[in-house]
């Protein structure tokens, strides 16, 4: 077993900075996210999923690396492209797929839908569908931790296109001045919906090149290498937990599918997808495991277990009814109902 050079070209790190167990977990998470997202994709085309849905195919290393570095109690704030981050925190697939299918067994029994996955028990504090809104919200959760002397970190995921909206700016400044234990994770997959972010952004790295505007360190990493993500996350979380304040991490990645269900992604230049498929995070990681001596049989077992889980979850969802009609008017207000009058 030889020591490996990181993809980002940094000094070689010995294998033992990440334990074999963790490496296998990182692999398992990525594979499960991939399989679950692929299943979601299939279910669309079988018309079992209504509405919209935004997949993280190709971006699994970020979700896996970040979640693996989190501790129980840490809080994830996601976007509409949040299935991966939700699964990565340990939420059962059937709860996620059930919500995508808008069934009673879904995380929110179909009331929220694919853009709003939430599982408080797993630290997934909501998925937000208005661009930028959750950056200040994550600051607030971090402020609570700071105020109460709790040591959890709030982690906020968003895309490259999100860096041009006002709330981004307000949140970053806010986090910096209050030294909040929040980590901002920009998943730079090059595109907003259909437009290249580089065409409508004044700087090359839309997050990292703005870090200095908030007194933060400029961090750009290979978001397709789960080890790199994991190590960077660990450092940022440790800093946050020790009172060192916020970090912003820009992870370079690529989505293999279109923006959402409705998008065949025809706007991509020829060859772009192919180049990125070579950097497929799961391919990279599978090779890595093998290089570090994980037996092929073990790798296969993880892969097969994942497929089995997805199949099982799918069956559970298919068998689940839609939520009862009464749910329409529950939980508008804290008393459980929706009464706006007496």
């Amino acid at each position, binding site marked *: 077993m030889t020591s490996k050079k990181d993809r980002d070209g940094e000094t070689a790190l010995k294998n033992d900075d990440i334990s074999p167990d963790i490496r296998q977990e990182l692999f398992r998470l990525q594979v499960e996210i991939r399989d679950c997202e692929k299943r979601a994709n299939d279910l669309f085309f079988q018309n079992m999923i209504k509405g919209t849905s935004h997949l993280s195919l190709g971006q699994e290393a970020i979700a896996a690396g970040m979640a693996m570095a989190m501790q129980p109690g840490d809080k994830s704030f996601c976007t509409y492209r949040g299935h991966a981050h939700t699964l990565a925190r340990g939420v059962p697939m059937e709860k996620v797929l059930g919500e995508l299918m808008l069934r009673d067994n879904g995380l929110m029994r179909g009331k929220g839908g694919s853009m709003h996955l939430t599982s408080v028990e797993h630290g997934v504090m909501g998925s937000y569908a208005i661009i930028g809104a959750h950056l200040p919200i994550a600051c607030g959760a971090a402020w609570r931790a700071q105020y109460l002397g709790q040591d959890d970190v709030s982690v906020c995921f968003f895309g490259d296109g999100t860096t041009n909206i006002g709330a981004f700016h307000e949140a970053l400044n806010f986090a910096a001045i209050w030294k909040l234990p929040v980590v901002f994770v920009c998943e730079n997959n090059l595109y907003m919906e259909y437009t290249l972010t580089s065409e409508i952004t004044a700087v090359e790295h839309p997050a990292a090149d703005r870090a200095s505007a908030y007194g933060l360190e400029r961090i750009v990493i290979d978001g397709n290498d789960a080890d790199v993500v994991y190590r960077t996350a660990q450092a940022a979380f440790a800093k946050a937990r020790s009172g060192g304040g916020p970090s912003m991490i820009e992870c370079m990645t690529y989505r293999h599918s279109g923006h959402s269900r409705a998008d065949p992604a025809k706007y991509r230049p020829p060859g772009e997808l192919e180049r990125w498929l070579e950097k497929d995070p799961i391919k990279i990681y599978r090779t890595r495991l093998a290089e570090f001596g994980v037996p092929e049989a073990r790798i296969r077992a993880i892969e097969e277990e994942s497929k089995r889980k997805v199949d099982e979850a799918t069956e559970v969802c298919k068998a689940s009814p*839609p939520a009862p009609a009464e749910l329409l008017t529950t939980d508008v207000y804290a008393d459980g109902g929706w009464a*706006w009058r007496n």
Partner: protein
Amino acid sequence: MAELTYRDAVARGIAQEMERDSNVVFLGEDVARAGGVFKATVGLVDRFGPLRVRDTPISEQAILGAAMGAAMTGLRPIAEIMFADFAAVCFDYIANEFPKLRYMTNGQLGCPLVVRTGNGGGARFGAQHSQSIENWTMMIPGLKVVAPSSPVDVVGLMAAAVRDDNPVIFHEHKSLYATKSEVPDGEIVDTLGTAKILRPGRDATILALALMVPRALAAAETLASEHGIDCEVIDVRSLVPLDTQTILNSVARTGRLFTVEENPRLCGWGAEIASIVADEAFWDLDGPIVRITTPHIPLPAADHLEDLALPSAPRIVERIARVMNGARR
């Protein structure tokens, strides 16, 4: 005369005006190269070029602010706010800037622009992508507000909106984009502030807007055939200016008023109209004014729940039949 979708009518209306006036420019997220996320602006950039049809960053405040600055100084911008719900992130322009400029400057400056929004529910997009926000804009003095229900109205009202010297909020309904009907060839220019009686009737007046119009019409047919209640259906079309004449005249004839509103109940456009009628046509009324609205809740994503939330033709029928029968007791 050709069949056109509501979606294609948007592009046609914009194109008609861009053809006519080189000061008309169009901007928004993914509107140019991609033709809009609802594909309502396909072809415009090819026809008018990337300097007139511009893709923007995800910066709704900059989009509306830039539209305003351009409008103040000579252009006639059309700006897209992709989902109407996102009006909330740039609401300062809608509530505080566009509509107050002319008044505050004592008429020195105007703001002739159009903001198009993808409004309304029915697409299972959940609470943050499905709202009917007509009343967010109707309540602000200084704006004009329209919400067409058919392809021909889309073209004609778009033209009227672009030619109007005021800021006009143009609410397109997402769930109507795929609907089709005949649209005459040639230039079409409609008039803001005019409602349309789509079905005359004697027993009751039903007011509807956008997606609620076809549902109100369907309900009226059922009410006539199954309940013997002959409803007049009015497409309000324009909330500001409001065609109170058409509405008041209708109520004077029928003596009864129902509104069919997609918005959650409180302070919806129907409330305003109900209050006008309860004041100015009180003595014409033969019974209560009844509003049929989405319940005052956020919208659920699940299809069966969303369908329960928005007023449906059967719900309209059921409610009106019950009330009208009660009224005859």
